[in-house]
């Protein structure tokens, strides 16, 4: 790790002001990616602005037909939340499936989606549920938020405050874990909204989370595991590496979608 300056602002305004001022500064949430990258000397921020002291960024609350989760809320807290568990159990289970105990005790919702790792779980939940990302400047629909590999709509100095998840009719998440890292080799989040509309978000494909129009169409016609499993996706656009070929990833999307639907149907 290279040396850096550490800051711990007490509120959001101070944090955004600091980040605006510091050229090579980085916001630190749970640090589950950034600290590891720094230890490997792959990241070299001049300054770290630790958001952990900003009370307004943490917490889970109901807001009408939505659940609003603060950006600094830890995975373990989402997994254990009675509110989330009752109204969007698939999201609670997703949070409880991230990494290991230590990761869940430190990692945060905002940190995960701001990083937008192509194999992370939360982007699938946020996109699958059609959530809204509330930042220090604006509200961004999930469909507009994830813009590519490790890329989001966030502008320099813009911080995520919270994410608002509309409560669906039903939802489910199924993950096929990479045998080594246990990140999602493929993770599929399926959601049937209160309106009946179906959203399907896929993570682990290689180029960032995306929605599958084929699966959404099939599941809109019949929200059953068999309908999901019957969809054969083209391998085009899926990445291949030593853990999985594009064909295997494409195949796993259908399998995991079927299992996610089964989970959603209870």
């Amino acid at each position, binding site marked *: 790790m290279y040396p850096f300056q550490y800051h711990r602002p007490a509120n959001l305004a101070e944090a955004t002001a600091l980040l605006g001022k510091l050229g090579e500064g980085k916001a630190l949430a749970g640090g589950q990616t950034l600290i590891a990258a720094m230890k490997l000397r792959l990241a070299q921020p001049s300054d770290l602005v630790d958001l952990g002291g900003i009370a307004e960024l943490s917490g889970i609350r109901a807001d009408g037909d939505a659940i609003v989760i603060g950006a600094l809320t830890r995975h373990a807290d989402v997994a254990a939340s009675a509110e989330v568990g009752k109204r969007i159990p698939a999201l609670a289970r997703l949070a409880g499936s991230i990494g290991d105990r230590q990761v869940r005790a430190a990692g945060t919702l905002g940190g995960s989606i701001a990083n937008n790792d192509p194999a992370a779980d939360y982007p699938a939940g946020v996109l699958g549920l059609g959530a809204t990302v509330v930042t220090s400047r604006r509200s961004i629909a999930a469909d507009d938020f994830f813009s590519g590999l490790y890329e989001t709509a966030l502008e320099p100095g813009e911080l995520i405050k919270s994410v608002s998840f509309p409560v669906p009719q039903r939802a489910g998440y199924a993950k*096929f874990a990479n*045998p*080594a*890292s246990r990140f999602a080799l493929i993770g599929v989040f399926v959601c049937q909204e209160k309106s009946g509309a179906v959203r399907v978000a896929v993570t682990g494909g290689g180029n960032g989370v995306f929605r599958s129009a084929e699966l959404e169409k099939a599941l809109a016609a019949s929200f059953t595991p068999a309908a999901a499993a019957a969809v054969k996706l083209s391998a085009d656009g899926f990445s291949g590496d*030593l853990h999985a*070929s594009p064909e*295997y990833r494409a195949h*796993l999307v259908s*399998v995991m979608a079927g299992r996610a639907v089964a989970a959603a149907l209870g």
Partner: protein
Amino acid sequence: MGANIANGIGASALRKEDQRFLTGAGNYTDDINIPGQTYACFLRSPHAHAAIRKIDTRAAAAAPGVVAIFTGEDLAEAKVGGLPCGWLITDVNGQPMKEPPHPLLAQGKARHVGDQVAVVIAETYLQAKDAAELIEVDYEVLDAAVDVATATQPGQPAVHDIAPDNVCYVWGHGDKAAVDKAFAAAAHVTTLEFRNNRLIPNAIEPRAAVAQYSRSEDAYTLHVANQNPHVERLLMTAFVLGLPEHKVRVIAPDVGGGFGSKIFLYAEETVITWAAKRVNRPIKWTAERSESFLADAHGRDHATRAELALDKDGKFLAMRVHTKANLGAYLSTFASSVPTILYATLLAGQYATPAIYAEVTGVFTNTAPVDAYRGAGRPEATFTVERLVSAAALEMGIDQAEIRRRNFITSFPYATPVGLTYDTGNYEATLAAAMKIADVAGFPARREEAKKRGKLRGLGYSCYIEACGLAPSNVAGALGARAGLFEAGEIRVHPTGSVTVFTGSHSHGQGHETTFAQVVAERLGIPFENVDVVHGDTGRIPFGMGTYGSRSLAVGGTAIMKALDKVIDKGRKIAAHLLEAADSDIVFEDGNFKVAGTDKQVAFGQVAFSAYVPHNYPLDRLEPGLDETAFYDPTNFTYPAGSHICEVEIDPETGVVRVVGYTASDDFGNVINPMIVEGQVHGGLAQGIGQALLEQAVYDPDSGQLLTGSYGDYAMPRADDLPNFKVDTQVTPCTHNPLGVKGCGEAGAIGSPPAVISAVIDALKELGVRDMAMPATPHRVWQAIQSARA
């Protein structure tokens, strides 16, 4: 024996060492800090193969805290030698193997990613690391020879000039003509081609060393995470640095796992020992985990074509094996012997195959050196034999257990056609026990039940044998070993009767402090608590060969037993004096020296006291003191063997293989501590199942970059990848050591990979799948299912 004491032989005594390990009181190399200590950071090659045109260290030398920087040129100027290989292999034409130089720091060329190019010594580790980034190396990147299967083909780049075809040796073993003749007459031939996947050892404690030079004593002290400190010292002083041995003390304190990877003399500890005098400061080096991936010696990595000839009844007639073994970029300490002496000699397995021939090509590649890793050659041999047997059974429609029974060796001693003589064993006993415990009879019902859930179940067998208790020195010497393989033990009885054992064996997880104490307590009839075991310090222990090859109890324990015999023999003479009897009338029983047939006796402690306070003592014929040393060189290897049965369940939609049952019935001879043996089997099984399903070191075939350089890509087995093991022991005592023990440290890793793979194939056979590579990852299994269905 026969002393009926608590925590004697056969008791599952709790491990003496666990108190300190579990409460953070262990003393590992990185815990050693010496006043004035500096830190070393090694600059490593980012290229698999590159000429080094120039190294500019000026900016680095001017960086804060830098004490010194050394490159290969500095070592050459100082006439420091390279690392030696401890085993000479002679090829099929009678020529010695090619032994290219193995410089401590690259000289002229870097030959694998992670090869040491320079060392920076600084006041802190971070300063050393920062400065290392400032060293400018002008590399001319060269094409790399990476894959063992292709590195010997024409047109491949040569790793070393002296081996233009990258062949270190072509070594043959067995009667080729007899084998060829048997094949010509065979009713059936089973042929397999497979890779034995390359593994990275991953001890929990990374390699580490602290080197110190004392000007006042003109002597060195090296603390190092190592499995055999005397061997380390001998190799370093006599073969590399040209130092007198008595001026170097090597201490291997608590060591957090080795699995073979800490047997070897490595460049890093050698460089800092040399440099400690140059800079006149102590130097510490502790590997980062990413360095462990790149620069620890790896294991396995064979490409093999194996054939088994059978008669119409499934009796084995002959076996023929051709293996290309990856040696990596340089010959590590025992690299040459692992795929030859420790591999081909085991190809008889548990079977009376009359003729066997193996030809092994040792291959240099631009990858990290490959050397012994838990099992060392014997897992590779077992995989070859047991996969052939399972495949032959499948091809010929013979039951998996039945084909093995038809071919078991049943009378002992048995001389194999590959040079070993098995002293004892009962292979039917372990197979029968394993089948009973695994409930083989109930398997068809479990398979049907799984099928209803859409899952495929399979059962796989492995009847392994290993040669342990390394080794009869004369046999090893005739086969090319450049060292002896005896062991030493010293029993120092203190005046009040407590005992310190000094052993040349080294414990890095095996629990010797407990097991050896049990042996001594039993033999002397004294409390287990009164026995301490000292190991790992050349300044304290007699010259011994260390711990590897499941040898410690069979060889080191026997040395201890011999020293105990000497102690008791002397004690008998002292007792005879005290009891005013003839030496020949004294017997030693239950911790007392007795005049046979009388009630006159004297306790062991009283005899010890008399030896050190010799007021009433036969000084005219005996020296005072009670401190005896023995060296033991075994007359044969020991032959642990057993039967493993693995049951898997496969999800055909994803290719995921779940090990749902694993039974191991092992014959380790007599067992001193069943709990420790069970733990050793569990650890070995985790590594063997890891090899079969998860672990693989993968280099990019073109660039030679290590693609599995972290736990993000190298899949270590986790607890939830493994079932609850069912383990059992059957006993045929070893006939040639006094404890009747054989060794248990490697068996799990040796026996399990073919059991797992055969179970996977058994599960998939109804789809037409006949082969499966290791590791059987979900991706690979799914692909096999797709290909079979296509």
